[in-house]
């Protein structure tokens, strides 16, 4: 039987090792599966390959030019070298150029900064004078959650491509050209005055720290413990990582794309609205309003009993259909099921609704 092109399997050689792969895969896909490290900066598996940062260039027999592993599709019997002298020389000078364009010294590592780590991996770099590129910032940016420091930007365009390809929000764009190229909004307005939804996906995907959250800036250098949890702002069930230091949540970060249902994407609530966790006004136990008109701390058993008694009283006096049950959009499917069960089986009414249903 003829093989379908979709499942066409063949071998390639990477650094002298034969590896099996499928048509449609990139060199980077195959290298990752094999555990071979090829550096990348502009790559994000959620985005179409851009091949713009040039850090993943590899040497391929028969190809005159170095080719980007993130974009180059494998074909049978490719012979690829990701650690040849030519590739290493390329990486070293490329990183030297990046550091000449980058406002931060090599010793400083920003939170989530892949660039300086990668530059340090290349050994001693060329001591190039700073090029002082005239990249502009947005003059009046006043969004509450993140900042953009153009001096740390390498124009990998992950943020703009994420905003376009994943969120389809298109609030930011590459603007100007040459050394002046920068990340801009229409007319350089503040993000608050654009289509931006403040999801922060651009911050999460930024590999250099040019886009930075405002809140945890002080805790930049620490290595927080990551606690995987489910966002409880709505029923979608996005997975997220609480970054915890001294039992305090200092930040929310995205799980690695491709590992969770939400593919590392979060919305403004999930990513930034975590202040309530340690807020002094947060209720930490049930409260019952007493006959004195004041709220008094109670146990869950007391609270549930009080609520149940009140509801049953209403049913007794006015009938079951005088009751209505509305569940929050923050409830999961299972919780909503429980709510309607409670309404129908325990109280005998069909008056149940979920606020996200409208």
């Amino acid at each position: 039987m003829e093989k379908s092109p979709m499942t066409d399997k063949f071998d390639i050689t990477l650094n002298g090792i034969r590896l099996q792969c499928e048509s449609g895969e990139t060199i980077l896909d195959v290298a990752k599966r094999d555990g071979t490290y090829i550096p990348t900066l502009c790559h994000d598996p959620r985005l179409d390959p851009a091949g713009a940062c040039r850090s993943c260039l590899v040497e391929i027999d028969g190809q005159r030019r170095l080719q980007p592993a993130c974009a180059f599709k494998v074909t049978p019997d490719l012979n690829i070298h990701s650690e040849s002298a030519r590739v290493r020389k390329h990486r070293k000078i490329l990183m030297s150029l990046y550091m000449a364009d980058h406002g931060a010294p090599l010793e400083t590592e920003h939170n989530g900064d892949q660039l300086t780590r990668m530059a340090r991996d290349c050994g001693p770099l060329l001591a190039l004078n700073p090029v002082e590129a005239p990249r502009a910032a947005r003059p009046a940016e006043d969004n509450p959650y993140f900042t953009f420091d153009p001096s740390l930007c390498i124009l990998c365009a992950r943020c703009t491509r994420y905003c376009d390809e994943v969120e389809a929000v298109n609030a930011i764009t590459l603007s100007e050209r040459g050394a002046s190229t920068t990340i801009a909004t229409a007319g350089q307005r503040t993000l608050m005055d654009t289509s931006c939804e403040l999801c922060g996906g651009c911050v999460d995907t930024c590999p250099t720290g040019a886009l930075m959250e405002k809140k945890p800036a002080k805790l930049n250098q620490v290595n927080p413990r990551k606690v995987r949890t489910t966002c409880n702002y709505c029923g979608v069930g996005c997975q997220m990582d609480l970054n915890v230091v001294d039992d305090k949540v200092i930040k929310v970060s995205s799980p690695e794309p491709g590992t969770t249902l939400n593919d590392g994407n979060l919305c403004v609530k999930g990513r930034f609205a975590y202040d309530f966790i340690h807020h002094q006004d947060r209720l930490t136990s049930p409260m019952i309003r007493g006959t004195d008109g004041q709220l008094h701390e109670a146990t869950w058993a007391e609270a549930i009993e009080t609520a149940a008694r009140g509801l049953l009283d209403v049913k007794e006096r006015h009938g079951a259909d005088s009751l209505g049950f509305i569940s929050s959009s923050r409830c999961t499917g299972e919780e909503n099921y429980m709510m309607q069960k409670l309404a129908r089986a325990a109280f005998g009414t069909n008056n149940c609704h979920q606020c996200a249903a409208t």
Partner: protein
Amino acid sequence: MQQYSATRGQILKLLEAEGDTSQESIKRVSEATGVPEADVYGTARFYDLIVRPGPRVCQGLSCLMAGTEELCEELTDAGISFHRVSCLGQCDRAPVALDGQMTLTHCGPKGGISPDSSELAMNLAGAEDLNYPALALARKNGAEWVAEQLESSGLQGRGGAGFPAHFKWNAVRKESGPTKYVICNADEAEPGTFKDRELMSRRPHLVIEGLAIAAFCIDATDIYLYVRGEFPGPGHSLEQAIKEAAQHLGDFNFHMVHGHGAYICGEETALIESIEGKRGMPRLKPPYPTQEGLFGKPTLMNNVETLACLHSVLCRGGDWFAGLGKTEPGTKLYCISGHVQSPGVYELPLGVSLDELVQAAGGYVGNPMAFSPGGASSGFLPISERDRPLDFRGLPEIGSMLGSAGAVVINDTVDMAWAARWQTVFFEDETCGQCAPCRIGVRYVRRALDQFIEDGDSSHLDHLNDVAWEMAEGSICGLGMTAALPARSAMQHFPQGFSRDGEESHDG
């Protein structure tokens, strides 16, 4: 993300009509096309004619040598405001200034051309043939015959790379699918080059006939002409020619697209992006435009001059064309400017030497020291190479190239560090900024040259060769690959100009 919006291609035209990139203009264009405001803004801000409309003075090397600075002073004294901009493709009448409508307001004497002769493939001084006999022959003998003639002519792509033209044609011919496109690359902007400008102005029918033959051959209906925005006159000549020859062109749709001030859009994939209404950033190759070009369809793109050769290739035969050349097939439009008596466009057998070219241009001015054989991208060669054939295969052997054949002669009154600096300024102004080796590298090279020129300390240039190596290896497109060549070749061939220590620098 591949987005082929039907209206996206209109945004640059609409923006140019708006005349600025103000919030109101951006909003109107966004609403008219459905393209998000940020995308409209980012695209607009890429193009110099949209960002900085208005009068401009050329600061290309030929103009600088002919007196750009004096011209700028004159304009300033007259109270005229202007932008100093990249080469305007008028090197044969340097130094030049254009007004806001891209009309020449200041220039030197008009450039020369070769005299009328039947032994020239394009013959700029010749008369146009409105009967389109080559197209008639193509229709009569079929696409296979055209391909055979093209192959036997040995015609190499005249845009700069010099690959045999029939490779590309055959690659597009064998692509299946109902929709294919033909594009004429008339975005001529390589400093020192102005041959396509003359060809479009003087022999527009040669170009249109060539396009029709190409479209017939690959079975395409839609033909795009992307004409440099600073060339409204030549663009108008092409439009006139399409009208005049309408009776031969009934089965084709011609689309005129005007550039908006970005040299990089001469790179074929950047040009395609620009037609699609995007920032002119080159695509990764593969896939090549012959496979996935305009709107993702197989696309045949040729330079103006390549297309203009088809008329005589078909009418007089591939073998006749091949026999015209000296070291390689055909005649070639050579541009010559700088320190020569009669700058201009001269059609000569492919493979003439610099001396032969300059002879056609009336001889040298002063004592020649250096030359660029094919625009800024070809770097500099010492005048000792004056006897070497100017052809596609030979020049790469000495680290240069024929490119667009825009030769510039430099005499010994010029400081080579100064000349290299200005060629590098051009690339710094015109790099798209997409990839780091080019964006950062060319700025590094320009600043290193500036620092050397300022204090004469040659240690500023210590890393220049390494950076140039990386630009050649790591850049996405040809601009970055060659942008360091002016500096590197000047240092290689004129080391004495780069070893001053503390000595006063001077300019040309």
